């Protein structure tokens, strides 16, 4: 560095007295940036550094993995697959016909609680093979009344007889319409359906002044019918449904049971099996689940953490062994022969 400064100042002198008029050159200003000489830290991958990095990762990851796994195991989950069971045996050859008929589709299921479930217990419905993620909707229309005619993104469920459908679009049109009621020891189990949607959605995404209009009035009936006297911001089932699922398998919150359930409790579920998943072989499940700090029952994170932590430990060990068995001097000049033969690379 000192060299540079010296030479540059010498240069300045040189130009002052010698051929200065030759070129009124812009003398480069000396700075560490312009000379690309900013102080830099140049780490290299030394064995110690790399091995300790892998070690550190494994030391952190294994406990987190175990904690996540425990969290997931702590969650009590009851899953009941109902789509076939709820079809009367004689109709099972033509499920689609049955579901589209006007027969009474009430169906009773019994769930057995395996472990104590602390309240709140979340009630989800789970759909499989349902592609909610490529359907149409219009956020502007849902937000306020003024956007009622913003239906361009709603095709083909956008307008009927020239007036806009509210809520428009296929997502709303295919609103889930199974209903569940729970009883325990012949006592009705209260399912709280308030506050199942995001507060931010109720407050800002679904207008208080937007009321359903022309909904499900077309020749083709989709899913549920909405009460036209309740504003969209209070139609929580719709709000939940409108949160598009990313995956074809998803759960949506149906309600909360605010009561503890004890092991071996038997819960009777009465469900209205209205929603057609039969034409595309979709599964329909009812899920009762508690929750943990990590969310619902999902072993993935825990297992993945353990695997990654284990692999890191394994790699750290491997590198250590290799390092001890076959030490390799870094920067060994004997690798620096410049006999650049074509094979020697």
């Amino acid at each position, binding site marked *: 560095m000192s060299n540079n400064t010296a030479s*540059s100042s010498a240069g300045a002198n040189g130009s002052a007295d010698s051929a200065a008029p030759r070129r009124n050159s812009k003398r480069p200003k000396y700075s560490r940036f312009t000379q690309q000489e900013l102080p*830099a830290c140049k780490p290299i991958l030394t064995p110690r550094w790399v091995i300790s990095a892998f070690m550190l990762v494994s030391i952190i990851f294994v406990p987190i993995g175990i904690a996540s796994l425990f969290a997931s195991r702590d969650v009590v989950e009851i899953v009941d697959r109902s789509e076939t069971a709820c079809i009367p045996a004689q109709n099972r050859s033509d499920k689609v016909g049955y579901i589209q008929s006007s027969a009474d589709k009430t169906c009773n299921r019994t769930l057995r609680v395996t472990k104590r479930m602390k309240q709140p217990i979340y009630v989800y419905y789970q759909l499989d093979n349902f592609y909610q993620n*490529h359907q149409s909707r219009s956020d502007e229309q849902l937000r306020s009344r003024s956007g009622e005619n913003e239906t361009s993104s709603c095709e083909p469920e956008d307008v009927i007889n020239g007036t806009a459908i509210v809520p428009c679009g296929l997502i709303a*049109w295919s609103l889930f319409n199974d209903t569940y009621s729970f009883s325990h020891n012949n006592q009705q189990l209260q399912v709280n359906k308030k506050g199942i949607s995001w507060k931010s959605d109720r407050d800002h995404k679904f207008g208080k002044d937007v009321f359903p209009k022309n909904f499900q009035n077309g020749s083709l009936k989709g899913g549920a019918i909405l009460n036209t006297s309740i504003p969209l911001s209070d139609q929580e089932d719709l709000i939940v449904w409108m949160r598009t699922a990313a995956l074809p398998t998803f*759960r949506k919150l149906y309600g909360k049971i605010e009561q503890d359930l004890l092991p071996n409790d038997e819960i009777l579920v009465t469900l209205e099996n209205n929603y057609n998943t039969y034409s595309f072989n979709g599964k329909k499940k009812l899920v009762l689940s508690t929750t943990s700090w*990590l969310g619902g029952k999902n072993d993935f994170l825990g297992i993945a953490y353990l695997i990654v932590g284990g692999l890191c430990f394994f790699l750290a060990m491997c590198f250590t062994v290799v390092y001890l068995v076959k030490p390799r001097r*870094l*920067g060994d000049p004997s690798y620096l022969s410049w006999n650049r033969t*074509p094979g020697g690379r």
Partner: protein
Amino acid sequence: MKRFVYINDDESPTQEIYCDNRISNRKYTLLNFLPKNLWEQFSRFMNQYFLLIACLQLWSLITPVNPASTWGPLIFIFAVSASKEAWDDYNRYLSDKKANDKEVWVVRQGIKKHLQAQDIHVGNIVWLRENDEVPCDLVLIGTSDPQGLCYLETAALDGETDLKTRAIPSACMGIDSDLLHKIKGVIECPNPDKDIRRFDANLRLFPPFIDNDVCPLTIKNTILQSCYLRNTEWVCGVAVYTGNETKLGMSRGIPEPKLTAMDAMIDKLTGAIFVFQIVVVIVLGIAGNVWKDTEARKHWYVLYPNEGPWYELLVIPLRFELLCSIMIPISIKVSLDLMKGLYAKFIDWDAEMIDHETGCPSHATNTAISEDLGQVEYILTDKTGTLTENKMVFRRCCINGIFYGNESGNALKDARLLNAVASGSPDVIQFLTVMAICNTVIPVQSKTGAILYKAQSQDEDALVQAAAKLHMVFVSKSGNILEIRYNASVLHYEVLEILEFTSERKRMSVVVRDCQNRKIILLSKGADEAILPYTAAGQQTRTFSEAVEQYAQMGLRTLCLAWRELKEDEYHEWSLMFREASSTLVDREWRIAEVCQRLEHDLEALGITAIEDRLQDGVPETIETLRKAGINFWMLTGDKQNTAIQIALSCNFISPEPKGQLLLIDGKTEDEVSRSLERVLLTMSITTSEPKDVAFVVDGWALEILLKHYRKAFTDLAILSRTAICCRVTPSQKAQLVELLKSCDYRTLAVGDGGNDVRMIQQADIGVGISGREGLQAARAADYSIGKFRFLKRLILVHGRYSYNRTAFLSQYSFYKSLLICFIQIFFSFISGVSGTSLFNSVSLMAYNVFYTSIPVLVSVLDKDLSEETVMQHPQILFYCQAGRLLNPSTFAGWFGRSLFHAIVVFIISINAYAYEKSEMEEVAMVALSGCIWLQAFVVTLETNSFTILQHLAIWGNLIAFYVINWIVSAIPSSGMYTIMFRLCGQPSYWITVFLIVAAGMGPILALKYFRYTYRPSKINTLQQAERLGGPILSLGNIEPQPRSLEKEVSPLSITQPKNRSSVYEPLLSDSPNARRSFGSGTPFDFFQSQSRLSSSSYSRNCKDN
């Protein structure tokens, strides 16, 4: 093809035919700016591609994302380059306006008027005063100088800083200055061209001005636009070319943009990605349509109509096309341009590349090709002024067979010569007279009384200076009268004609009349082969040839001086022919050469001068270092073969025996040349297996034949040979050689300093100009101008190499990050029913491409893998750049694989961690995006070699900025991702997922890199390790600068046989024992042999294919 300019004729039609003097360098006008600029931008493929994508996005049926995600960046990029263009054009407009509005004196209707420069018309008479800028191309008709001379500074035109003299044509001599504005006449001149050295025209004045004869005009009679009038009170001239039709205006042109090898590679990779994209689109499009027809119809809730419109089949492929369009990063061009601009700035700023003698910093004129510097394979260099200082010093001479200056090495101190001068020996006096007056030097008396010489040729300057030191002082030149002071007496000579120097003739002569005895004499000087064959039949020229040979071996430049007395009538007869030749419009130069030939014969050779041109500082070290770096050097010089070989030896260009071997290709006829070529080729192919430096030497004549008839064989030779010396070559041959090497797909760099190198510089992939004594011509034409040859080392090894490394990283990284996000989108399509739905929202996509992933990587412009010192010590490391090891399909495949791997990691982890009840589109998208951003940060960290504060700021600051920006967006109720980021940041599972992505994504990469780094290190890695672990880096083959002086090597008078040029200098094929001796009495080449060179013989060829 001619134009007739009627002088001072306000009614003549020429006024309408030719444009006025309004200069316009503007590319655009206010009206056509937008369409023209857009048209230009859209002529690039990348832009067309993005425009097509952007237009497709306007079709709402198929667009998976908001059109803004493409339109935004596209408009931004267009706006940036358009406003740059507009700014440049506005500045051009301002400078044009300044020039156009300048007031000048112009004659109108016979009266001098003060007019704006833009109103000058062809044929107008323009008056200029001292220090005025010339507004258009003028033919002089009058000056304040009684001899009709004026002085001109032409720096703006050709970069040369010395004053040029211009004279009024003979026809206008003696016209009273009051009558000048009444002059009438016609000038017949060629149509405008850009040759600033030629103006072949005729002038005829109309009565009442006498002289109805045609008077020839040359460039000497013109003053050209943008020059400055100096030392002359006033001049007046006739406008012949105006406005944009002036010589300057015509030569102003936009040079062909050069494309670097890297750009070509990036384009190729882009093409490959494009093909890949099309394949993906077709496959997914078909899959999507099949899925739709088989599966989607069952999904009643999507309401697919049974019978869609005709374009139904296209919808899904087009949607995928839009989804995949980000595979080609829109930001890459902008990032690259920015980086390239900075590389160029670093060159401009480099304090170590300032020439301290002149204070000239280095300058990158072409900002786009810095990476090519790191990939140079051949350097073609000029000798004089490039390798040497072009500071000529008269050292020795041989007058009439007597050698002066051999003992002391300086003839000016040789007592015998001083005695001879004092005693007035006639030979010596004649010799000195030729030295003093056979030139075009202008003596200028300075205020202190000292005489300064303004010379265009450094050789002439040296000769005149030397003559002055030997008491033959060239005092002044007034008009045609030269005043010489010899001892106490003053002699006058009248210059009758000057037969100018051309590179074809290789000599110049003057015809003067000795005013003392009225004799007419012809004085000539030139190359020996241009003078000695034309000496009088009886004269013995052997001693001269020997002297030339001897001097040339010392690396001195020789000139042969000669003279002849002319008879009056001979001169007059010839003078008529000369005049006629001078006034021809077609082939004037050739005609003049022919006429000159008729006078320059039967000369009496007087002697030989030897001028030393010292090597520049650090030239041998620079060449040695660069040769170690695997760069091949070719020297192309107009000088003599022996001089060239000596200089080549002294600057490490070729290795002396026994390491090196020189092979000569010569011959006068096709047969001889071809035979010699075959022999050389054979020798070459035998010796390539040995670690030996083989070089071939060829001269201009043989080269002409080779290039014409044996191009293929010569190309083979060029590929085999690392080193070549081409002497006696013309500028166009230099360019042809560059062309030849380029055709073999080598990266060439041409370095030169003079006007004769301009063509080669322009032809080469990279042209480097030395801003030297021969003016700035080369520096102006070049892509880079440097002050000294030794800066080339730094330019290539430091700037070129870093630029290459940085661009290699930046470009591949740009593809990596685009592919990463694209792969995620493709994977997502498999779980969204192959419908071409986008996982990410438009805002994220746009910000990802132009912001999150573009900013941090930009600071890689400061990345240095190795310190400058290490690179200088191990120049071989440049090989990695030359062979393109850091950016080629296989490294690209690595990055491709990495992006695929990372996409899989991000995708699998985010959809599994956010499954079931958490499976919410916006959340999953944001988790995946966060994963990508975190991975980016770590990838950049892992690939950065040196962290400055800026790197930390950019990498970690970007990560923070990502969160801040998303929080802001999440706070806007109307945005799609309202509250999402707040929600996520509050969830432990979000952070756990992100860290899992980082660990799973980076772990294998780090492990692999560590393994490669430690157990399969590249040379770069090894050096990095050595450098950073401290301690002295064991360097194989350190460069020790060794001062060399020419004088010691060749013992004086060691000539054996003057013209004995055996074809092969080592008796490998030729068995003649004296072959070796022709280098001077068997002087051991081992003298040079001082250090063990690394065997770096012929690898570069092999590496080429890998």
